[in-house]
């Protein structure tokens, strides 16, 4: 479940849409950490993530009337945040996608208990920006490959290949951190 999945009372949304600054602050407080974290995972840059948080929430405030309640409020806000972050990614261009050889060695599955946070964050940071974003959007936020492909102005295959390659890269990066206890699975069938 996405960390964005926070239910917001309809009355609060209504006040937000009437441009009540108190309601806006309440919404900010609820979504500050999920939105910032999502942006930071996609961009791997604290300053840019903070800017995305600011810009996304301001856009939501200014365009609050466009939220019609057909989907959860958090999904609407998450999409605005993702769009802001991906727009910045596209501006970067350099090393935009992961370009790994297809005979990339299959790495072992990871032991999620043994892998510490730092190792995982470092492994994420080794991914090319678009690859990291596709992996995060698919594995954590639950976006489908077709949605991710559209968000990148690319195809569904693009998303599939980036996610696949990103996962392999992560497994390879994390493999040395695995304890030699035999807990880990043997080589994953990737």
């Amino acid at each position, binding site marked *: 479940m996405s960390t964005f999945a926070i239910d917001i009372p309809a009355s609060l949304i209504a006040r937000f849409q009437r441009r009540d600054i108190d309601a806006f602050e309440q919404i900010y407080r609820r979504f500050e950490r999920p939105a910032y974290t999502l942006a930071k995972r996609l961009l791997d840059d604290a300053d840019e993530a903070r800017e995305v948080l600011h810009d996304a929430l301001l856009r939501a405030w*200014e365009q609050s009337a466009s939220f019609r309640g057909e989907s959860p409020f958090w999904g609407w806000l998450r999409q605005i945040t993702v769009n802001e972050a991906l727009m910045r990614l596209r501006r970067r261009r350099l090393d935009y996608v992961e370009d790994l050889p297809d005979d990339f060695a299959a790495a072992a599955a990871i032991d999620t208990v043994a892998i510490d946070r730092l190792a995982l964050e470092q492994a994420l940071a080794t991914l090319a920006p678009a690859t990291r974003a596709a992996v995060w959007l698919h594995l954590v936020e639950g976006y489908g490959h077709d949605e991710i492909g559209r968000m990148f102005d690319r195809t569904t295959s693009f998303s599939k290949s980036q996610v696949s390659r990103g996962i392999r890269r992560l497994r390879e990066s994390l493999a040395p951190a695995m304890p030699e206890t035999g807990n880990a699975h043997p080589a994953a069938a990737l």
Partner: protein
Amino acid sequence: MHTPPLPSDDYRDLAAALRALPLESPDPSAWPALAVAARRSQARVPGPRRWRPAWAAAAATAALAVAIGWLVPRSADDPIEAATASITATQDAEARLVADLVARNQALERALRDSGDSFPVDADFAMAASHVEDLIAAIDDQLATDLDPRNAEVLWRVRLGLLQELSALRSGGNETLMAGTTGVIAVPAEPADDIAL
């Protein structure tokens, strides 16, 4: 070149590990700047504002002049600066002063907020109130970026004065305004003819 498809359950462990990463908070918070931007945005939205009373414009100009006057560095032998320096002799005293001003700002802001939608019916007063809100937003903007504690004191003081003016405008307190008793904004006794902006 072909990447084989990934079995759907092959990355559950990895997904679980990624989801388990803790949430992070921006440092510093993005809210102060966002609140300023939101207020600016809010101020742009209200309906047609083609006409603005001249006295409101004059009040705004006077307020800014006062603020700028306070913020312009003065020479060392400036008596005002000397007096200010004696009052704020220590950083602790300065911090207490700012804290007091912040508290007074917050109290007045809460009172304004609690008054809900009691905006003046008179269009001129409504426009003037809107303009004062713009000025408060400008002060907030300055407070968000200017970390000099001495400037902070002046800015909070100006902001307090503007909030007092706003309170008077919203409550229809034109008597207060006409007398110019709140000090920060000099308001002419009678509204002048409307001017196009």
